[in-house]
């Protein structure tokens, strides 16, 4: 296992370095003069020169990247052009909200997805199966921003059960988490259904039943535990969907997370802030996938030795 961990960590080095190069290049890929774009053409020549110098854009590309990487390793992502505050401070302020939201959505997705998938598999080709799979199909096709608005309309405006926006009470988390988690729940439902069906067809299930193990035990100890292994592998991928989807869902619910910060940064053409957010999101995503891979290897010993 230790060798596997070291190996996986070692693989991350080139990926993270390439990510840093791409994020660094973002400023240079802006069509036209990035400084003029960032100042939205309102800057005087002196302001432009000052910004160019403070961003280091007047130095050779390799030197710029070296500085960028050096600062990055010291936790310095530069300063936001709009607010003038350090990018890392802006992100630190908003990141917890996004982490809460994605974690809650993931919980919704796993709970709902597993229940739907199990119900569908156990009642295979019966009405409950079809109902669950139609629900999953609908869940994948839902535009999250619209689903969120419909939930607000029903649960905030008509029933007055839950707040429509903001992050003032723990109740505020429910609607955004359900909105964001639904699509991932649908994908988990589909996969856990087909995975459970596959496992229930295996010889060892028949053996367990034949030797008189009660049905619940068969399902839990032999069925579910084996069926969950492939499901685990897509949870990491679903996390990517949640991080991206958070941008939209946060805008719908006025949730003060990274996604809202990103959208504001785009409208302000605040490149350092955008770079910082993209970099942090990629790093989180890579870290989550690493954890899932390690967990996967822990659950399924075949992976460690291949």
């Amino acid at each position: 296992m230790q060798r596997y961990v070291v190996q996986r960590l070692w693989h991350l080095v080139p990926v993270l370095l390439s990510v840093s190069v791409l994020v660094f290049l973002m400023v240079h890929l802006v069509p036209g003069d990035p400084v003029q774009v960032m100042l939205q053409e309102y800057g005087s020549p002196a302001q432009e020169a000052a910004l160019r110098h403070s961003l280091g854009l007047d130095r050779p590309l390799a030197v710029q990247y070296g500085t960028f990487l050096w600062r990055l390793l010291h936790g310095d992502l530069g300063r936001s052009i709009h607010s003038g505050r350090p990018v890392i401070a802006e992100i630190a302020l908003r990141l917890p909200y996004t982490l809460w939201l994605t974690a809650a959505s993931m919980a919704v997705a796993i709970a709902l997805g597993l229940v739907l998938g199990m119900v569908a598999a156990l009642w295979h080709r019966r009405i409950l199966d079809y109902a669950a799979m139609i629900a999953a199909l609908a869940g994948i096709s839902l535009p999250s921003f619209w689903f969120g608005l419909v939930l607000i309309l029903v649960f905030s405006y008509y029933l007055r059960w839950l707040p429509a926006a903001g992050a003032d009470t723990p109740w505020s988390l429910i609607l955004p988490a359900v909105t964001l988690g639904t699509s991932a729940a649908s994908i988990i439902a589909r996969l856990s259904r087909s995975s459970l069906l596959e496992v229930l067809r295996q010889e060892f299930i028949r053996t367990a039943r034949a030797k008189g193990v009660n049905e619940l035990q068969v399902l839990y100890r032999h069925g579910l535990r084996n069926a969950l292994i492939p499901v685990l592998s897509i949870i990491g991928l679903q996390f990517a969907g949640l991080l991206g989807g958070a941008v939209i869902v946060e805008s719908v619910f006025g949730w003060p997370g990274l996604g809202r910060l990103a959208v504001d940064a785009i409208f302000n053409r605040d490149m350092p802030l955008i770079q910082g957010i993209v970099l942090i999101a990629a790093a989180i995503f890579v870290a989550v996938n690493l954890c899932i891979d390690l967990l996967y290897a822990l659950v399924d010993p075949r992976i460690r030795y291949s």
Partner: protein
Amino acid sequence: MLSSTRGSGTAETGAAGAARPVRALSHAAIGLRRITQHRGAVAGAVLIAGLFLGALMAPSFARYDPTEPHFGLRLQPPSAVFPLGTDSFGRDILSRLAYGGRVSLVVGAVSVLVSFAVGLPLGIVAGYAGGRTDNLIMRAIDVWLAFPELLLAIGIVAVLGPGLQNVMLAIGISGVPGVCRLVRGSVLSIKEEAYIEVARAVGGTAAHIVRAHVFPNVLAPVLVLLTLRLGTAILAGVGLSFLGLGVQPPTPEWGAMVAEGRAYLQQAWWVSTIPGAAIFISVMGFNMLGDGLRDALDPRLH
């Protein structure tokens, strides 16, 4: 059980079909029959046909100008005059919906084309060439995948600036890794088939083998992915327009229409919810057709 026997059957008819064009036709006919017998696929195809028809015929049933405001007719509820009501500028929602469908369809189609134009050749080359070429391409794809898809699209729009063209490019580019990985996987499994070995043994060049034997056999999974990606791309497109990064007002577009109606959700529910429902139904159509195609053409895919 059924799926595994069907899977090997597909591969065999594919092999014979590549050698004799007459059999290839019947192979396609079998696929077509399976599709028309799949209830979900037919329902999806009907939804999509309706969507296309609505977008094509927009000028004939849109009774009003989709962009011209009429401030005396703001937020009218659905009625005989305005079947789906009016928005906060007094514009007929049905007319805007019809023209907006065109934009969403074009965004979906163009971005999927971009994904496949880059991902398909990359996947074929990586899968067929193998070795260092494969390694190089897949390492690049790994880096690409380090960015969550929608976030990558948003990042690209951030660099290029908001606007419809940039949105299509961004969604297209962020979809490349998925296409590349699927195509590479399919090519890898086809490469091991006996007919490829035969083609190589009789002196076929790599270019010929790819064109005549590999490409026709990856078509089925590519078609399935293409259909499913259309749904995803439309969703991403309306999402970015909802955020204000896509089309700019007053152009009608479904995501932007939902965003415009948000402020009036309580007093005029129809402004936001109707275009949202249109998105939902269209994407569902593509997903149903894609799932049906997958069941019919390639049961091995999941």
